[in-house]
């Protein structure tokens, strides 16, 4: 998750003008006022970065760790590995 989280944090810093210090895996989407529409855009960007296709729009994801784990799961599925958090 670490690498994925770093990429996620970089996107949030660059595209959403959030300060990196605010962003930890425990940070909730509500904390940074990321609504479902913005989350859709964020996942779109992550799809490009990780060459994956999201299967849903992020409903149910609450923290940045959730988002990173979701992307990791997509990467694992793409690579044929069992889905789950990466080491």
């Amino acid at each position, binding site marked *: 998750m670490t690498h994925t989280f770093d990429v996620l944090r970089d996107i949030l810093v*660059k*595209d*959403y*003008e959030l300060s990196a210090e605010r962003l930890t895996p425990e940070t909730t989407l509500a904390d940074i006022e990321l609504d479902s*529409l*913005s989350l*859709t*855009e964020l996942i779109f960007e992550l*799809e490009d970065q990780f060459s994956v296709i999201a299967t849903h729009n992020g409903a149910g994801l609450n923290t940045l760790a959730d988002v990173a784990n979701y992307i990791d799961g997509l990467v694992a599925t793409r690579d044929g590995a069992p889905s789950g958090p990466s080491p």
Partner: protein
Amino acid sequence: VKRVAVTGLGIVAPGGNNPEDFFANLVAGHSAIAALPAERCTRLETRVAAVADLDAAQHFPAARLRMLDRVSHLAVVAARQAVGNAQLVFSAEERSACGVFFGTGTGGAASTDEGYLTFYQERSDRLKPYSVLLAMNNAAGAWIGIEHELTGPNLTLSVACSSAAVAVGEAWLRVRSGAAPIMLAGGAEAPLTIGTIKAWEALKTLAAEDTVDPAASCKPFAKNRSGFVLGEGAAVAVLEEWEHARRRGAPIVGELIGYGLCTDSAHITRPSVDGQARAMRLALDSAGVAPQQIGYINAHGTGTVANDPVETAAIRRVFGAAAEKIPVSSTKSMHGHLLGAAGAVELVATLLAVRTGTAPPTMHLDVPDPECDLDYVPNVARRVPSIEWAMTNSFAFGGTNAVLVCKRV
């Protein structure tokens, strides 16, 4: 019936990003039409356009910037300016009563174009998640409403080149009837994308570049006119019930006193003397003003072969002998044709003409056309201190004829 004050104007358009600069450039005869950079002309015949000088990144945080097409950037910045100039701080009660009536012909053209490019040319399925929200016609008006938290009616009126005039006129009716104390009304257009320009080229209505002076490419009412020059921009007016404006000590730019609206329903593009004349008469009637009282007309004056003699004949029909004495000008010679925003941009020019007693010129009018034989204020602005009432015309493909009349205060 309520009187309707214009208490604030905002504009982001070729030639100025505030009403004063915009009008000063018109009076000075400065054309904002210019050669397009070569990289924007790939596969285009068009060589000239009127670009608004707006770096949207200076006006929106990054996340918001991406959610808005250029048409909405222009619109929101113009509306912000209008509200500021009106010194308006909405109360909770006003927010729920006030609305936005907004005009645009094609909405988020750049975003539509970009989506097509991605899908059809690049053969990618990766269309942006915001594609629909960027391109939808009502986005500009919606963003204005969101920024100012106006929860009254928010309508987008799309009747091609009459869109903004109709938006202002319908908002005027709403304030006049007492249904709303304040309305934001105007229009925006951002058609300078390769796909949109190409579509206009196909209609053969765009001006050929004046190779000697690209800024002089649009020549309304001149024998050597060859069409209009596409422009981008936005303008917004704060329309406010007169007593409401006076109570809060608002700055009053002018009074909007008349609106005429009719439709040709005869031909999809061909302008008609009957339709244009009827709209002007309706506007005069609603204003309670006699033709000879009009001191300035901001013409639709596209510079197309078709429009200019028809508009000339329509003005003659309505104004009779008085037509000889009324300064008529087409400021499109300088700011280009802003299509769905034109009516609002030209309302700004008309209100300031009345306010300052100055008729802006029709530029690049050196070769007279016998079929266009009014006083077009050729090439040099004119002081006309006696202007009390003025009219602005907007006529559209689809046959919508819309005319606004304003009064000096």
